[in-house]
């Protein structure tokens, strides 16, 4: 069977579902970040697949580059916040950081 657009989009959809699951269930802040990276990767697969099969040229790949750049910036800032959270709360459990709750 010829490998077409659907195959790549299916892989992207499965990675998206797994990333969503990690973001919902995991309480460790770094694992939540890994879920976000999985979701961004699935979006990148979709963009590059449409760039090849949709006749878009390299425009889809340019957007992928900017997604990767923003993922780097997001990961750096989020890990800084996680380290600060650990300094203040002695944990990286995102449910424990509830000082503003009541």
């Amino acid at each position, binding site marked *: 069977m010829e*490998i*077409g*657009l*659907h195959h*790549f*989009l*299916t*892989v992207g*959809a*499965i*990675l*998206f*579902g*797994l990333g*969503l*699951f*990690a973001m*919902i*269930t*995991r*309480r460790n802040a*770094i*694992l939540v*970040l*890994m879920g976000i*990276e*999985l979701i961004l*990767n699935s979006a*990148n*697969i979709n963009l*590059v*697949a449409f*760039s*090849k*099969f*949709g*006749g878009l040229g*390299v425009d889809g*790949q*340019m957007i992928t*580059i*900017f997604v*990767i*750049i*923003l*993922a*780097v*910036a997001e*990961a*750096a*800032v989020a*890990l*800084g916040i*996680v*380290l*600060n959270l*650990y*300094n203040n709360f002695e944990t*990286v459990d995102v*449910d424990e950081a509830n000082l503003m709750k009541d």
Partner: protein
Amino acid sequence: MIYYTILFYVFAVLAVATAFYVVFAKNVIHSAFALFGTLFAVAGLFVLLNADFIAITQIMVYVGGILVLMIFGVMLTTKIADIDIHTKNLNRIPAILFSTGITVILIFILFTTKWNIKPQVQNQETVSQIGKLMLTTYLLPFEIASIVLLVALVGSAMYARKTK
């Protein structure tokens, strides 16, 4: 063409299997190392999609940058010697229902939609095209991205500093 099919299935199965391990592993370090496999397999998929520059960028930035940063984060925020670095999951059943529901809906939509597929040009190298586009059409986003990276660098260094 048969090699293309075999390679696609190898990379796709590798990506999905290691992503499952990332999500379901009990140990945070095991999740981080399984994410290596996922990112490498996605880079392989990018190669199969004629996106050589994106594949190299994926390996250099994600595997060389983000993942090493995450492993640093795991090691800095857990005392590996005394307390366990296992993590717990909450709301398992509703989360499984929700995320599989969304995945099934996505796959259903992408198989029922009539995509406008154009015949693609084979084996065109992309690096020179991306370089030209980055300095002409996408010049403004390129410059803004550099400022975003600088601000993120300074901001995260400031956040991560110990204030006490």
